[in-house]
């Protein structure tokens, strides 16, 4: 025998589950929403997507190669996921340099400063997004309207049909400023994505499809998405029952804004969400309640990013107090 035998402790076989499979699985799941955004916003969406992905990978490359001087792992897919999520979270009219600044903060501050993949306490894409929202409030809240001719149905409602309007408020923006009476339900268009908003958040349907794919492939479990959706639905529903003239109905909250994007792709981030099933449920419920709280009771029309980041902060605490049920814990013995 030419080679020496390898001695190592058991097990001597490994499964074929890898970081790459998980990360590129998330990328796959986001393709429907990406296609909707290209369809609705045209080339601007493609520009934002490419710049965001390339910038995130470049920032990670530069830091790993020249600052840490360690192995470069930009092909593991995690920087691409952050890039896509960052792009999904901005309006397609955003200037390129702002997006690059966001990518530097997302990867540099949100991820690499803590030690790279697996060490970041907060979701990097959300760190980048909130940085941009605070630094460039005007650019981050100027929403291009979807290309008008592409509205699927022309129910009277949110979208004025005049071609000269290129930007418009988001449904949540109208709700926040003018109250529940100003928004007219148009769930079909909102579900399909024909509304103003950040690039990737507009089509709840595409996002749900991708989310189902993630759960089916066992990349994520149902615990965070279901508890997040249920708690925000129930909380919004209670408010709506109390005063329907002031508060929007829960279905409206479901299909507007970045809720579906947050629920399936950002709250479920491995690194910044809890480890145990119990913890995931607490995390989801907390994020759901916070989202509606912020949407309804603060000047911010959208609360998904802040809610998830706040809950990210609670993750270590949740991990400490939610232990999985051990085998044989409650079994009586003879």
């Amino acid at each position, binding site marked *: 025998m030419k*080679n020496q035998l390898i001695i190592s*402790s*058991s097990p001597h076989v490994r*499964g074929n589950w890898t970081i790459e499979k998980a990360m590129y699985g998330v990328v796959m799941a986001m393709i429907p929403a990406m296609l909707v955004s290209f369809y609705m916003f045209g080339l601007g969406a493609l520009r934002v997507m490419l710049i965001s992905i390339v910038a995130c990978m470049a920032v990670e490359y530069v830091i790993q190669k020249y600052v840490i001087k360690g192995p470069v792992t930009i092909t593991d897919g995690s920087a691409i996921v952050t890039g896509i999520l960052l792009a999904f979270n901005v309006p397609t009219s955003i200037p390129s340099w702002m997006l690059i600044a966001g990518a530097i903060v997302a990867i540099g501050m949100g991820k690499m400063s803590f030690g790279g*993949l697996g060490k970041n306490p907060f979701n990097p894409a959300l760190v980048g997004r909130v940085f941009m929202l605070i630094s460039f409030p005007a650019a981050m809240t100027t929403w291009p309207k979807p290309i008008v001719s592409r509205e699927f149905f022309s129910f009277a409602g949110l979208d004025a049909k005049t071609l000269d309007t290129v930007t418009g408020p988001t449904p949540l923006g109208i709700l926040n400023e003018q109250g529940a009476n100003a928004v007219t339900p148009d769930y079909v268009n909102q579900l399909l994505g024909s509304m103003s908003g950040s690039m990737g958040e507009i089509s709840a349907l595409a996002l749900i499809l991708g989310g189902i794919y993630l759960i089916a492939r066992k990349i994520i479990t149902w615990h965070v998405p279901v508890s997040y959706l249920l708690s925000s639905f129930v909380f919004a529903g209670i408010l709506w029952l109390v005063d329907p003239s002031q508060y929007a109905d829960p279905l409206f909250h479901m299909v507007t804004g970045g809720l579906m994007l947050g629920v399936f792709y950002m709250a479920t981030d*491995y690194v910044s969400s809890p480890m145990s099933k119990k913890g995931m449920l607490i995390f989801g419920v907390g994020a759901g309640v916070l989202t509606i709280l912020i949407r309804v009771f603060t000047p911010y029309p959208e609360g998904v990013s802040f809610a998830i980041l706040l809950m990210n902060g609670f993750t270590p605490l949740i991990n400490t107090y939610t232990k999985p049920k051990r*085998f*044989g814990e409650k079994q009586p013995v003879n």
Partner: protein
Amino acid sequence: MKTFKLGGIHPAENKMAASQPIEEFPLPKQGIIPVSQHLGAPAKLLVKRGDQVKTGQLIGETAGFISANIHSPYTGKVKKIDNVLDASGYKRQAVIIDVADEEEWEEDIDHSEDIIREITANPDEIVNKMKANGIVGLGGATFPSHVKLMVPEGKKIEYLIINGVECEPYLTNDHRLMLEKTEEMLIGIKILMKGLGVDKAIIGIENNKMDAVEHIRSMLKDFKGISVEPLKVKYPQGGEKQLIKALVNREVPGGKLPLDVGCVVNNVATAYSVYEAVQKNKPLIDRIITVTGKNLQKTANLKVRFGTQLSELVDHVGGLPEDTGKIVSGGPMTGKALPSLDVPATKGTAGILVMTQKEAKFADPRNCIRCAKCTEVCPQGLEPYLLHQFGELERPEDAEANGIMDCIECGSCNYICPSNRPLLEYVRVGKAKTSEMIRNRKQK
């Protein structure tokens, strides 16, 4: 179909040797018999250099409550007593016997193939015969089997559980035994039931061996009280805690034994050797060993006398392939990597797995991405990523509080980890530190 609930994985089965009938392996020229082939104290040596020994002669005596007799598998002359490398990777005392051409058995041993069906021994005699004939658990742990029949006062046993799960990939030795030595095994189970005073025995078999399930079922009419339960394939179903959960839905708590929930678990091959020990007075001197691997010319299930060098078994299937990267004694999930094939087969050798270079090499570990897959697959409900950290950071108090001593070392966490982290390795380090701490605490 029944299975255990918590955690578990589905590694590729690779049971290539399943269709190979049991072959009697010829006697070697020289046998190397370690005095420690079991869990517990090594046996006390009874022979010296130059002694003539017969097949089945006692050559090592139990040296403690948890210990086992060792018998000579050969007729011949003791060449020397020496320390030799065994499958554990340590050098241990062993008797080296030059095997004679003519085989002569100890007189009171019946080594014929005739099946003796009537069980005349009473429970005490059963325990004594098992002890005298060096019977240990052949499922992997090599725990002296007679100890399991000595149930402490106040404990009531309801079920004898027979482990025919064979959840380890590649291994097929139990499968072949269930197909070919069925009646002897069933008599062995009856003997164990009598020894324990129970009237219910359940054989658990995973449903990738339905031929064994059907075959055993067809013979059960003569064996009242024994039933067969097919189980949904899931690793580590052969772990006794998981098997008890799957079959009778009871959970053995951390730090407790199966008898605390009214169960005793024995392997199918152990049941067979109990039959031989009690009915035929034949000591444990051989067992079935699966020799397998993807690049071997053929695979085999060999009935091998202890002390045969593993290299001879591999030569029998065409020798070691050029690109061998790792040799494992046992299955790929819990087996031990061997430094060389020049080690003897012993009571604990269930199989030899020859892996290719490609199979043996793993990617370097990367950061934990906190995907929680390890906690999802842990059959004991632990958090392997956390125990890994406590092991690495040498924090035995925290490790203990998080249940590190409940770990059954099945390796599921290690198997599933997408970052290929050596989770079980560090959990073992942590367990060693933690048990040291517990020992010190008890002494104070």
